[in-house]
């Protein structure tokens, strides 16, 4: 297997999900695109499913993260508690670094 893509983020880093809308088999839900969250953990590296869905090997493997979002940052009119969170697995090529506010 070719060498993996280097892991860029650590737990606690603030990131923003790219607000991109490519066609194809994308595993990044629409509802978090353009939203900011914090890396909860590094899950490891995995062949890119966006490539594998079309019969390609998806290599080199992409780092995968669990990103924690506050519900109120994802849904401006969220009706639950302000500390409720949502955790989503997102591949590194969807993430950009942000400064903590």
């Amino acid at each position, binding site marked *: 297997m070719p060498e993996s893509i280097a892991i860029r983020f650590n737990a606690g880093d603030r990131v923003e999900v790219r607000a991109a809308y490519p066609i194809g088999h994308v595993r990044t839900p629409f509802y978090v695109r353009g939203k900011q969250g914090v890396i909860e953990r590094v899950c490891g590296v995995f062949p890119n499913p966006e490539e594998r869905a079309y019969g390609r090997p998806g290599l080199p493997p992409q780092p995968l993260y669990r990103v924690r979002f506050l519900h109120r940052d994802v849904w401006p009119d*969220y009706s639950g508690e302000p500390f*409720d*969170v949502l955790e*989503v*697995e*997102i591949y590194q090529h969807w993430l950009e670094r942000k400064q903590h506010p």
Partner: protein
Amino acid sequence: MSGEHDHDHDESAPHIHRSPPRADLDDTLTYYRAMEAAVRELLIEKEILSAADVRRQIEIMDGRSPDGGAKMVARAWLDAAYKQRMLVNGSQAAEETGLKGGPLKLVVVENTPSVHNVIVCTLCSCYPRTVLGLPPDWYKSRNYRSRVVREPRAVLAEFGTVIPANVQIRVHDSTADMRYLVLPMRPTGTDDLSEAELAKLVTRDSMIGVALVGSP
């Protein structure tokens, strides 16, 4: 007498009474069924798989149940070291209790007095099948998938699970290579129970996070 039955009944002359036919529910050849059959037949024809392999795999899949997950939960309630290993590496903890893992990583998330976890797959229907078996139909419904990430407290309340305002809700959307299992809180009044007795209390829904484990 019905319209179709307005003849004299002469039992000496046998005749057939036909009920209105009821449509079969299992013979609709949808797009995906046709695709599945085509791929399966090709794999068999090229001797990559046999029909028996396919049947066996379905049998294994259907044989899995929430009992596996319940066993893990009960053990974690009794064995702090096992629980710690489970929270660090869920797949390994599953294998320790005899559950064969797949290629997907199992992440166990723990409910506490201040955190309540709930699992969903908004993109499709990813589910920890190795430890819970096949997902319930509602888990795959668009209603559950779209709403539990949007208004989790309202959805949980519809399941009869009201989470207090001082407890954080954590919704886990299984979008990629992880699968999730909720480690529910151990109910009160269970101090004297054995691992097997505890496992019987642990329900599927409590391990998805839409219910709590009740006291015996």
